[in-house]
């Protein structure tokens, strides 16, 4: 190379040709660059769509999102009432929060400029602090790109035609692979735990199932539910109604997963071995329980674990209460219930069967023998239909009908059954009648979508050939010459919107009388309690209002020594609420008797 390189000296000067060209830069703030359509800028959250599940907070690997309560904003029913707050000093705008948001309410916007001297002002509650962000949404997740798994693993079931041939269990249960796959959809937000009356540790046991630790799952489940296999089959599962995944997909099959886990323990001995309960030394205190239904059994189980001497008095030959005598065997087989009750007895709970309090033993006697008495007496009686002719032969209460069938009695319903009502008892009675070979029609006052029964039960009934006549109000039962049911006369109804904002009311249309042939009519319009076993001296202290015992938050009645739970106390009238009552009562009784 020569000392002076002419080309090498002049070439760089060609840069001068760039003079006068438009520069790359823009003169901010006169001009600002609009972000791309997919830009990941500051967060926006649609507060009304958000359910406060906290999945955004969980996935955030910078711990930039926490869930806070916004003053004056309580959220909808079933959500946590909390909303995400983003620390923009920590956020890295990876948008994983957006990808996992089950509702799709959280998104990122084109907005990317924020300057402040106040470090605390970098804590933003998206949606509240930037309501205008809705117009600038740029990075969002649709159902296609979301990382949530919205589709439920289908539950294998018997075909409708097969089902009506016998009382064989309809739902066949998940196998191991199906259970693992279903459990792995859970995001562990815990909204389910909040809404469960018994606050079962749902995310924990689902995690255990997903990780393949079925035994752990069983132990976690037995932590606060001694009848989990029953719940795994027939629970009303409010948990699934609030499941975060259900916002845009199908809820986790929480009930089926519990069923799967508990069914891995095939016998009560296996349950005992897996749960390996720690039974405290006997403390010499005694508890008497009236009724071996879910609430009584729950109180009994957890009190026995705490070292109490527990005795249950049960009027029937079998324990389980309404779950034994009210629920048909194709939903809850007798072996399953027996297994769970055997296990409860195996830890020392004594059950006196066929002992009706008030007849075989007086309530006063029980009251005097035991340190504390718990009443889980349920609703043994059903409301009659209350229309003209309901005294006819063949007109019965569905609840009574189910009791007789479950107790092994034979009931002749003929070949045309009309069930009046829209709850689970109505559907149960209808499906049982189908299994007895009858043509079944359900007559319901409102629309099908208004039925309080479980939608899966309604679908199941339709699959089995049950006809549903919605918007029909029965007015009369016609008898034949022998006094037997011949037909049901009903009026068609139209739905009138409620001015007070309630659900639409059915109003009968005059002159729309229709007659339905029937050999049996079953009323499934509700049950009621029977408190005749209580002596007068108790009814003064133990208050009964609107057909139910009045209790405090500890399930304690007006008599401090007497506790109550189950259908005779709570209005929800389902098994899990009864279990919750029993568990609460157990804790209160333990506190009272141990003096802690």
């Amino acid at each position: 190379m020569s000392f002076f390189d002419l080309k090498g000296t002049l070439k760089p000067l060609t840069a001068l040709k760039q003079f006068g060209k438009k520069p790359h830069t823009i003169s901010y703030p006169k001009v600002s660059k609009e972000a791309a359509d997919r830009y990941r800028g500051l967060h926006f959250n649609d507060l009304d769509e958000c359910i406060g599940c906290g999945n955004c907070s969980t996935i955030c690997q910078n711990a930039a999102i926490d869930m806070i309560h916004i003053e004056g904003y309580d959220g909808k029913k079933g959500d946590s009432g909390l909303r995400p707050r983003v620390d923009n000093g920590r956020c890295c705008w990876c948008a994983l929060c957006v990808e996992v948001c089950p509702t799709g309410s959280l998104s990122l916007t084109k907005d990317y400029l924020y300057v402040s001297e106040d470090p605390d002002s970098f804590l933003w509650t998206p949606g509240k602090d930037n309501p205008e962000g809705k117009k600038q949404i740029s990075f969002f997740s649709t159902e296609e790109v979301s990382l949530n798994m919205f589709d439920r693993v289908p539950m294998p079931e018997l075909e409708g035609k097969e089902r009506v041939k016998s009382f064989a269990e309809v739902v066949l249960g998940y196998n191991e692979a199906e259970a693992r796959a279903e459990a792995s959809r859970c995001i562990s937000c815990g909204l389910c735990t909040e809404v469960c009356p018994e606050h079962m540790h749902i995310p924990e046991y689902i995690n255990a199932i997903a990780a393949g630790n079925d035994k752990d799952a069983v132990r976690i489940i037995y932590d606060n539910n001694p009848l989990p296999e029953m719940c795994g089959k027939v629970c009303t599962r409010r948990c699934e109604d609030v499941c975060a995944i259900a916002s845009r997909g199908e809820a986790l099959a929480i009930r089926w997963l519990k069923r799967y886990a508990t069914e891995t323990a095939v016998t009560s001995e296996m349950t005992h071995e897996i749960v390996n309960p720690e039974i405290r030394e006997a403390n010499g205190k005694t508890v008497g329980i009236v009724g071996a239904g879910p609430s009584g059994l729950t109180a009994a189980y957890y009190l026995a674990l705490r070292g109490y001497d527990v005795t249950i008095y049960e009027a029937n030959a079998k324990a389980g209460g309404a779950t034994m005598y009210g629920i048909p065997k194709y939903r809850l087989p007798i072996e399953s219930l027996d297994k769970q009750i055997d296990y409860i007895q195996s830890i020392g709970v004594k059950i006196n069967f066929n002992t009706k309090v008030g007849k075989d033993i007086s309530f006063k006697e029980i009251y005097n023998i035991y340190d504390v008495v718990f009443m889980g007496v349920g609703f043994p009686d059903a409301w009659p239909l209350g229309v003209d002719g309901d005294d006819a032969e063949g007109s019965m209460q569905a609840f009574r009908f189910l009791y007789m069938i479950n107790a092994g009695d034979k009931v002749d319903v003929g070949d045309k059954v009309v069930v009046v009502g829209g709850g689970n008892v109505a559907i149960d009675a209808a499906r049982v009648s189908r299994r007895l070979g009858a043509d079944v029609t359900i007559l319901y006052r409102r629309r099908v979508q208004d039925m309080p029964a479980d939608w899966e039960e309604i679908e199941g009934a339709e699959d089995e050939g049950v006809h549903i006549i919605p918007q029909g109000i029965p007015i009369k039962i016609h008898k034949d010459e022998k006094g037997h049911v011949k037909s049901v006369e009903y009026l068609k109804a139209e739905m009138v919107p409620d001015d007070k904002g309630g659900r639409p009311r059915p109003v009968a249309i005059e002159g729309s009388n229709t007659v339905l042939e029937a050999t049996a009519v079953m009323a499934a319009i509700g049950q009621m309690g029977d408190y005749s076993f209580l002596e007068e001296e108790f009814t003064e202290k133990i208050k009964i209002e609107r057909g139910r015992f009045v209790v405090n938050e500890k399930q304690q009645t007006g008599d401090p020594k007497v506790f109550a739970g189950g259908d005779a106390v709570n209005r929800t009238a389902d098994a899990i609420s009864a279990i919750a009552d029993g568990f609460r009562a157990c804790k209160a009784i333990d506190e009272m008797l141990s003096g802690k």
Partner: protein
Amino acid sequence: MEKKFLILQKNTQDKMREKATTLYIGPQHPGITGNMMVKVQVEGDTIVKARTEVGYLHRAFEKLQERRNWLQSFTLLCRFCVPEPDPVEESYARAVELLEGREVPERAKYIRVLMLELARIGSYMLWYGGQNGSLGLYTMGQWSVGDRNYILDLFEELTGGRVYHMYIWPGGVRRDLPEGFADKVLRTMDYLEKRLKDYDDLMFDNTIFQKRTQDVGIISKEKAVEWGVVGPVLRGSGIKSDIRIDDPYEVYDKLDFIVPTHEGGDIWSRALVRRQEIRQSIRIIRQVIEQMPSGEYFNRIPNPHKWALPKGDAYARTEATRGEVGMYIVSDGGVHPRRIHFRGAAYVHGITLLEDLLIGENVADISAIMNSLGTCPPEIER
């Protein structure tokens, strides 16, 4: 008197020789490579000893992964290297896919190559700035970093982020190409191709650049192999080695490109290699756009909270602008990585090699040499 002075002068020179002056280069971004320090002892202008000191950027990324799940990891791993995060994302995604046996849709593979090559060009654009800036030639840096913004614009449109893309994840890529994106890429490539000519005028034809880089920081072929040098640095020493050819991943085996090499082993040769690689990347991108099939872009991963990888380990390596980067992942069968280890080229280049290479060089060339080695302190420390 004169004799006395001569003796005094000799003594002073001896003393200076014994006690060479110590200089601290850094830790404030010596020649835009990041926060690290080179402690050099100089005699006059000549370096006699060099010690690198790192520790200013340690963020325990590898350790942090043990508390992240397999999905969360990918948003942190890309931070190993600021100018070019995509090869890290890609190697992690591929390692996870290898361990899990997860198939990746063909389209996703093409999109990944598109990303990687755009990132390569973007990273070299930044290198243009660094390499020239370290020699006091600032105009070049302004041009190339300005042009790099057109690539960042593409990234923004495709991924939603300009620098950290967090786009290549296990199973494919996060989103499909937006409408009209391919045309924009091609237009940008045409523009950059034209600009390369301007760069040549300003840089490679510039006497200053030539004189400052030729025969400076020489790594011989033997030494390069001995020290485990990789990437453009190795190719600048005359050894043809490129993971894209030697161990093709994604769809590189379906693409036609060459791997440029130069024999010199000095900064100049390494610069030439990079310069030619940009042209090859443009060539690759055009082929990718042409060949890209339609279809799925993501083989959906399960719920990230419950996503467990089978027990075992996997290693995936990718050709970055610094050379081979590799991701070693170990799973104990759980939802969190048991261990994630990253093999970065910068560790070899920026610590061990640099210390040796600087001896005998002029103190003014430290930054230029560091830049030519692709030293990336965030990658060294992780």
